[in-house]
């Protein structure tokens, strides 16, 4: 199956303190891929490299099976970018424009732009075409971006921290839109987010980046269904860590949380140790901050 987005060994030095290092990831149709990591871990830089906004020092970016980075021919870039929709954390349109004028700004760039679809989304999202961009709330600004991203028959949606700062209802609406978008199995979403509870509900895969390198790339079930958090005493934790491959421990004042890759196996081997399902938040915290054996 043709991958919609593929980064192969992308490296880029950004500053003396930060570089993207050998970032490899791929997205297949029908998937929502969660892209997580701490602030400054490299999520936005990776997205910028994928969209051709920065030139990688090494590696390749492929969109819809074709090479598409900042060095690709203009025609290829035009064609491939017309299949991508982008939603950023802040509304990127000039603040003095009105919602209705945004269509005239963005629409002409896309050969496949549909005025009817855009008008439909504006209506459905309750956006007033006469409202200025600067007067839109954060949620409304995100909806305006989403309307633009969905009005040109995009195959791939890229959301960079788009849920940050949204209230639970607005997040819920956004996630419903994303689930509907990928439902036909032809489209994909790359969802970069700090709010991992959104990914618990929607993501098919979770990719974590830390300090410019990919730390893990797992199916969501491996985290939320398979992995577990064992709540142990110091002695139990030491025993568990010695026996379970890949376990990570986080020490608290009176207890230790141990991440185990397989909750059922851990429960069978240590029935006296309570072991809960892991959330993506737990998994991320223990992988990034926990101590290994």
């Amino acid at each position: 199956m043709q991958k919609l987005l593929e980064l192969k060994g992308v490296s880029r030095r950004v500053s003396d303190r930060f570089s993207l290092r050998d970032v490899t990831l791929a997205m297949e149709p029908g998937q929502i891929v969660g892209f997580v990591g701490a602030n400054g871990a490299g999520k936005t830089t990776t997205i910028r490299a994928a969209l051709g906004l920065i030139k990688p020092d090494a590696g390749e970016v492929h969109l819809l099976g074709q090479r598409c980075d900042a060095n690709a021919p203009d025609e290829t870039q035009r064609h491939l970018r017309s299949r991508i929709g982008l939603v950023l954390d802040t509304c990127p349109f000039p603040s003095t424009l009105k919602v209705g004028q945004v269509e005239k700004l963005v629409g002409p760039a896309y050969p496949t732009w549909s005025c009817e679809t855009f008008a439909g989304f504006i209506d459905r999202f309750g956006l007033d075409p006469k409202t200025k961009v600067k007067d839109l709330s954060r949620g409304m600004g995100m909806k305006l971006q989403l309307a633009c991203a969905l009005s040109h028959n995009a195959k791939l949606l890229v959301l960079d921290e788009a849920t940050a700062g949204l209230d639970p209802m607005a997040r819920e609406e956004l996630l419903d839109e994303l689930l509907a978008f990928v439902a036909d199995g032809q489209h994909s979403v790359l969802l970069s987010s700090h709010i991992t509870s959104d990914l618990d509900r929607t993501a098919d895969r979770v990719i974590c980046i830390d300090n410019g390198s990919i730390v893990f790339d797992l199916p969501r079930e491996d985290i939320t269904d398979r992995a577990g958090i064992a709540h142990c005493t110091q002695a139990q934790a030491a025993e568990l860590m010695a026996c379970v491959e890949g376990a990570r421990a986080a020490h608290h004042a009176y207890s230790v949380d141990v991440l185990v890759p397989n909750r059922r196996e851990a429960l069978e081997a240590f029935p006296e140790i309570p072991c809960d399902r892991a959330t993506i938040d737990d998994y991320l915290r223990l992988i990034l901050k926990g101590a290994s054996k």
Partner: protein
Amino acid sequence: MKRAFMSELAIVRTLVPSIAGVGLFIFVVLTLANASDGDASMSAGACAVSAMSPIVVMNSLAGYDNQNGWERYRATLPLSRKDIICARYLCIVAFSAIMACATVLLSTITLPFFDHTGMPSTGQIVFETTIASAASMLISLMMVFLAQPLFFRFGHMEALRLSVGLFALLGCLAMATLSSSNPISNWLMSIAGANPNPAVLGCLCAGIAVLALALCAISCTVSTKVYRARDL
């Protein structure tokens, strides 16, 4: 490029009322000031607006680029960076030309109102106003073409600082060139001073247009190169 131009037009349309308003104000003030003196330089208002428009539209468009990360978002649209640059140049030229035409038209319409100052509304005056406005616009466009690569390389705020320095330098050069002791100034005064030959004026304006066109092509190429290399 057409798609990028259409997108750029969406922004330019929002600029028209404010720039036209300021232009009209400047035109009225300068025209009245010169006419009440019975001065022959009735074209001052038209020239000032024609000269102002390219610089104002360049700065305004660069300001829009800077708003809310629009420049970065635009770079993700299916427009090549060359398209974006060419559309920007085309927009500035088209807007400047329209503003220059509008001010010449306005100047021509208002000319009969100043008959009492002793200035006849002849074809010669209209021609001179047209040439003077076109030359003002072209010289201003040349300044814009010199500054535009700075905007694409450094972004709005930094480029604004640098372009002010550049314009000051150009101003000094212009003053030195047009000082009375300079042979270039003397030559210009001899051909375009009092009672100039219309054919000479036309040739002079065509020469400036050719120079502006060449500068536009060079500036556009440099801007495309620097913008392609820039991280957004």
